[in-house]
């Protein structure tokens, strides 16, 4: 059974149809890509999957469970990690503390224990820091961890978001335009990083990207969204030659060479 199943998701904003019956599935261990022109509904679909956006219709199931009615934080605790198109970091915390946020849903110490620094507070803090150290080392963020997040360039902030999401021990990682701004020399390096993350953390990925070539080279399966509908789907080879995709991108400037 697929890890993530979306069936006929519909979302409307004040008369505007953002998602019009989108269905999609991600199997275990798979990297699935989501492409489409600006305004196609990619981020809305992400928000619907993760629970930040109420679906007007349709259902979302995760790991065999219907999660349509569950709140976003419940879904995150079930193993959905995500990043945001505009990185959502806590400006007042350091890079390290931002990444620590990823561990916090699993920690049980509350205000009382933290305010009095009870043993449970120390124990959880130590465990969480160990986890963060591991992820930080794995992503090569070591030199930046004690800076403020405001001092980082866009790419750095995206990496911090990925690190934070990885600390939640996700089984599905949803990356919203994670490649733009990361500034690897080539898309190949980034694709390698993503594959390594999949292997080391044993997870599936759903990836929204602007760079079509990058998605086609990285993903096992690709969905193409336009005007809130899936206009094409299949393996990268199938999608590449799909006439509907070519039409959708006609006139749209596809940043072919702009890797990252």
């Amino acid at each position, binding site marked *: 059974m697929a890890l993530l199943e979306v069936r006929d998701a519909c*979302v409307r*904003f004040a008369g505007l149809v*953002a998602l019009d019956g989108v269905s999609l599935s991600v199997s275990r261990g798979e990297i699935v890509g989501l492409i489409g022109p*600006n*305004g*196609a*509904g*990619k*981020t*809305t679909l992400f*928000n619907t999957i993760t629970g*930040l*956006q*109420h679906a007007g219709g349709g259902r979302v199931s995760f790991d065999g469970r219907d999660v349509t009615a569950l709140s*976003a934080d419940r879904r995150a605790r079930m193993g959905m990690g995500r990043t*945001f*198109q*505009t990185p959502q970091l806590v400006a007042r915390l350091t890079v390290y503390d931002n990444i620590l946020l990823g561990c916090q849903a699993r920690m049980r110490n509350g205000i009382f224990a933290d305010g009095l620094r009870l043993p449970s507070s120390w124990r959880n803090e130590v465990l969480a820091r160990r986890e963060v150290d591991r992820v930080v080392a794995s992503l090569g963020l070591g030199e930046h961890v004690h800076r403020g997040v405001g001092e980082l360039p866009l790419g750095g902030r995206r990496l911090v978001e990925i690190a934070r999401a990885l600390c939640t021990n996700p089984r599905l990682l949803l990356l919203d335009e994670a490649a733009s701004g990361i500034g690897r020399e080539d898309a190949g390096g980034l694709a390698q990083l993503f594959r390594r993350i999949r292997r080391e953390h044993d997870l599936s990925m759903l990836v929204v990207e602007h760079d079509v070539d990058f998605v086609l080279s990285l993903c096992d399966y690709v969905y193409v969204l336009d005007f809130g509908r899936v206009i094409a789907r299949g393996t990268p080879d199938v999608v590449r030659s799909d006439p509907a995709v070519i039409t959708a991108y006609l006139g749209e400037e596809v940043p072919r060479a702009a890797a990252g």
Partner: protein
Amino acid sequence: MELLLATLVLGVVQGAVNALLGMGVVAVYRGTGVINFAHGAMAMVSTYVFATMVDHHAPSFLGVPLAAVVAVLVGIALGVVVDVVVMRPLARQSALVRIIATLGVLYVLQSLAIIAWGGATRAVPQLFPQGGHAIGPVDVSDNEIGIVVVAVLIAAAVTLFYHRTRFGTAIRAVSNSREAATLSGIRVKWVTAASWALGGATGAVAGMLVAPSLGLNSYILTLLVIQAFAAALTGRLESMALALAGGVGLGVLTSVAGTYLEQWLAGHPLSWINIGNVGNGIAFLWIIALLLAWKRPATTQTAASQGMAL
């Protein structure tokens, strides 16, 4: 049955004042995006001016009407002063900052009122002559009829103003989009000033209508802003008609609860509660219910805006 009818009449009269106060809050919100915590305090100051004028000119034929006109003018002036002195310097700040500033205005006006007129509660003469009618089994005073008629007339006038005059259309345009309104040549400054003036004027009228029955001191009217919010939130701070309905509904509910809870609770262990002030409890429940029924949770709204910004 008689008790119920009398209770309902009392509720409608109270509610008319709530509605009028709520409409003042809506007027300011629509024109400026500010929720005016000082609405009650401004009404209180205008009402003090009214009462003081009547003290000095009561014997003359025009005493009360003249004082009422002056009080409304004071209300308008107060609104404009708040707009020019406090709100304009804050024009670039967030709505929240401007709203907190209205708390400062409330604090200043309330303290000034005590300095100027003392802290004791005083009586205020009624706007309408003594007398009454028996409507069915219930006696309704002219004053009560007057309050409801004035509230309805002002509601009608304000609605006509918004929908039938050029200036009203301008205000509605600004409340939809400040930028677009500016581009289409509407003078936003005049719109905000007029909204504050309208708030001040309706507040003054509401204060004069309600003070004879509540008594006047620096805090009773100031805190009526809570009832005003309850009424205004009924129409999501946008709809005058719903604010009117909400105000009246709140008044009726308060009156009914006050009458029957007191009977029901007599001798009950809970009777130590000050049931006479049940209106404040009802206003709180009213506000909570409205806010919890707010269609989308706050988080989905942020998410939705992100979704829009694909």
